[in-house]
């Protein structure tokens, strides 16, 4: 038992840090640290920079462009990216559809899509949730009918993150309504330029536009865009959802935010003195730090356990990571709110090209929107209620 990283791991971390320092523009880092969203171009730029280095799809098998790093190195890599902070990878490509394609897809699909995912030449989005199918994803109603040499897709998807930029969408659609709901679903790749697709923005309470509704009206898709077998799409979806493990706790993001809280609390004042000198406030930070340290170890334990677990079987303890990870992300945004106090009020939607100086302290403007926005993390990706169901059933046997 040894918590320290090996010399090789320490060296690796330094290599990653050096790469970030060399390649990630300071202005972009500062923008992200201040709580602003990366633009489409920011995300593409960084993915291509990583891909050029051979780190674009680090966690993929080597034959498809992966690095062969073990779980600990993957963890170090991701943590450094979050702490930089760097623009996050577009998970829909690299962590979701990519692994589905290289695991279940045809050779033609692999050849066509994997390089474009790695280099973000193709922007992917996810067509899973529907207005009536959220936690109960298998209850989805979008259907794909085989007509001649095409699928014809009709229905509506929602919560499609960054779908406004997408070149492709992977869709779960019902292809057999006569069987148990999980057994009649297929996994289909759809070009967003296909006639009949309409993308409608959803504005979220923070004022941002991250998610969309996507409507399918007689959308014709070539039969060969089916991944794997017809009606086996639920299996691929479960594989995909179970895949996002090591990053789920977002420890790096919370760490970065704690740093920022401390920086800002050294400037903002309470009772005429820097807030950071207030013992009570420092104890509040400490409470979050303790839980975050515990979560970091919990995450490392899950990672260390991966090698012993059957491939593709997620550790049910990863529900712990999701629950605590989202609680702590939210807790850090609450501390930010407390730091900035009354100056959280002015609302300045992000408008590219605006030269208006912000009203109030420069760092204040993203704080309340971030607090509002981050309420989502206990809802999406399997709400915390769903995660508790999983623990109760899969871990505790209730």
């Amino acid at each position, binding site marked *: 038992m040894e918590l320290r990283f090996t010399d090789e791991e320490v060296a690796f971390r330094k290599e990653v840090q050096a790469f970030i320092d060399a390649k990630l523009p300071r202005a972009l880092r500062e923008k992200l640290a201040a709580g602003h969203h990366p633009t489409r171009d920011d995300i593409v730029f960084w993915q291509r920079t990583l891909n050029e280095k051979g780190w674009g799809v680090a966690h993929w098998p080597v034959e498809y462009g992966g690095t062969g790093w073990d779980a600990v190195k993957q963890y170090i890599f991701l943590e450094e990216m979050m702490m930089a902070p760097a623009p996050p990878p577009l998970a829909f490509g690299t962590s979701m559809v990519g692994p589905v394609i290289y695991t279940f897809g045809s050779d033609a699909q692999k050849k066509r899509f994997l390089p474009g995912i790695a280099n973000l030449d193709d922007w992917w989005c996810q067509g899973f949730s529907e207005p009536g199918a959220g936690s109960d994803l298998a*209850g989805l109603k979008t259907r794909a009918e085989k007509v001649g040499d095409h699928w014809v897709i009709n229905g509506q998807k929602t919560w499609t993150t960054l779908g406004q930029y997408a070149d492709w969408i992977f869709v779960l659609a019902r292809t057999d309504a006569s069987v148990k709901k999980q057994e009649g679903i297929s996994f289909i790749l759809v070009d967003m330029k296909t006639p009949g697709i309409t993308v409608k923005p959803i*504005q979220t*309470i923070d004022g941002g536009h991250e998610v969309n509704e996507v409507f399918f009206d007689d959308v014709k898709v070539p039969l060969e865009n089916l991944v794997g077998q017809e009606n086996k799409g639920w299996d691929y979806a479960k594989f995909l959802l179970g895949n996002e493990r090591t990053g789920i706790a977002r420890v790096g993001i919370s760490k970065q935010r704690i740093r920022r809280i401390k920086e800002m609390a050294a400037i903002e004042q309470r009772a005429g003195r820097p807030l950071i000198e207030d013992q009570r406030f420092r104890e509040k930070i400490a409470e979050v730090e303790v839980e975050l340290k515990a979560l970091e170890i919990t995450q490392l334990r899950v990672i260390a356990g991966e090698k012993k677990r059957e491939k593709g079987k997620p550790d049910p303890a990863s529900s712990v990571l999701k629950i605590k990870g989202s609680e702590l992300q939210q807790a850090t945004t609450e501390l930010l709110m407390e730091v900035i106090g*009354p100056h*959280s009020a002015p609302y300045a939607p992000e408008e590219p090209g605006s030269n208006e100086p912000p009203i*109030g302290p420069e760092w204040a403007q993203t704080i309340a929107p971030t607090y509002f926005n981050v*309420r989502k993390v206990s*809802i999406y990706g399997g709400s915390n*209620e769903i995660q508790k169901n999983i623990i109760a059933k899969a871990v505790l046997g209730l």
Partner: protein
Amino acid sequence: MDFDLSEEQQLLKDSVEGFLSDTYGFEERKKIAALPGGWSPEVWGTFAELGILGLPFAEEDGGFGGGAVETMLVFESFGKHLVLEPYLATVVLAGGVLKRAGSAEQKAAHIAAIAGGSSTYALATTERHSRYDLFDVTTTAKKDGGSWVLDGEKAVVVHGGTADHLVVSARTAGARRDKGGIGLFLVPADAAGLSRRSSPTQDGTHAAEVTLSGVRVDAVHVLGDPEGGLPVLEAVADEAIAALCAEAVGAMSELTDVTVDYLQQRKQFGINIGQFQALQHRAAEMFVALEQARSMAMFAAMTAATEDARERRALASAAKVQIGRSAKFIGQQGIQLHGGIGMTMEYKAGHYFKRLTMIDTLFGDADHHISEVADFGRLVAAA
């Protein structure tokens, strides 16, 4: 001990609630929010007609002689409908200073303007580093002959962008955080040297940054003792806290209702999600938090006239703490129980959540006020 409303109070409640129910739906509110300044002069006119703009002023000053309970009733309705108009700024804040510190002439001029709906007002106290301390004032007022010259910056002046007059706190003597030496000045919005930058706030109201550069204020526009403004501000803040507590209760009550409705209607896994016990219990906890908040909003209204200022402030603090704690829980859980839909701008729930979040930052958040309660040290014995 009596929790019943008088006949007049019930009438007031019904008339405000009736008007807002009829005209201030979620869609109408959206349109109002999009107006320049973010509020509706038409609605303001109706408020004047309903008589509520003169509510808390003495009858001899042209008001209706209402007390904190009347204000509570109005604000609970405001909270339910997320009313955007500058009532707090004009009537409770600037009006509160005027009624307490104004001379007969000042009252005659301005309270009539408020009650009649012809002008709106705002109170400029917060500064960059004052946080919630009303006595932390760096804006200066220097005597120069028969007038005062004001220099400094004020932040987050609620509805300051559209106000016709601003009441500004400024230091006339002493050091930054001295409790004495603070004056209150009535400044027309078009005064030379006064500039404003206004923006919407997170909750759809508006607030301004106000810069004062050599703004000259005639001595007749000083409100009360030029070195004794703090007790006035404190009394106004306590009245505002009581009003905000009631507004928050209205918002929490509506958000709880909306959430329970959603639980009754939303189906997942073939049943209404309201049948899931874990969600039922969360909703029950929201109800508990709401009832506790409702009690403290009443408490704030009913103790607003406490004679001892120290005690009055502590009781207001206690109410604001409870409101802050309850509002955070109800706001966050209101979103959580809705799931994705709660995160969208098109849906009501998030707007309640945001207003509740902003109410916490007005006149001191729960963490500010818990210190006040702790310093008071005898809440269980008081009131």
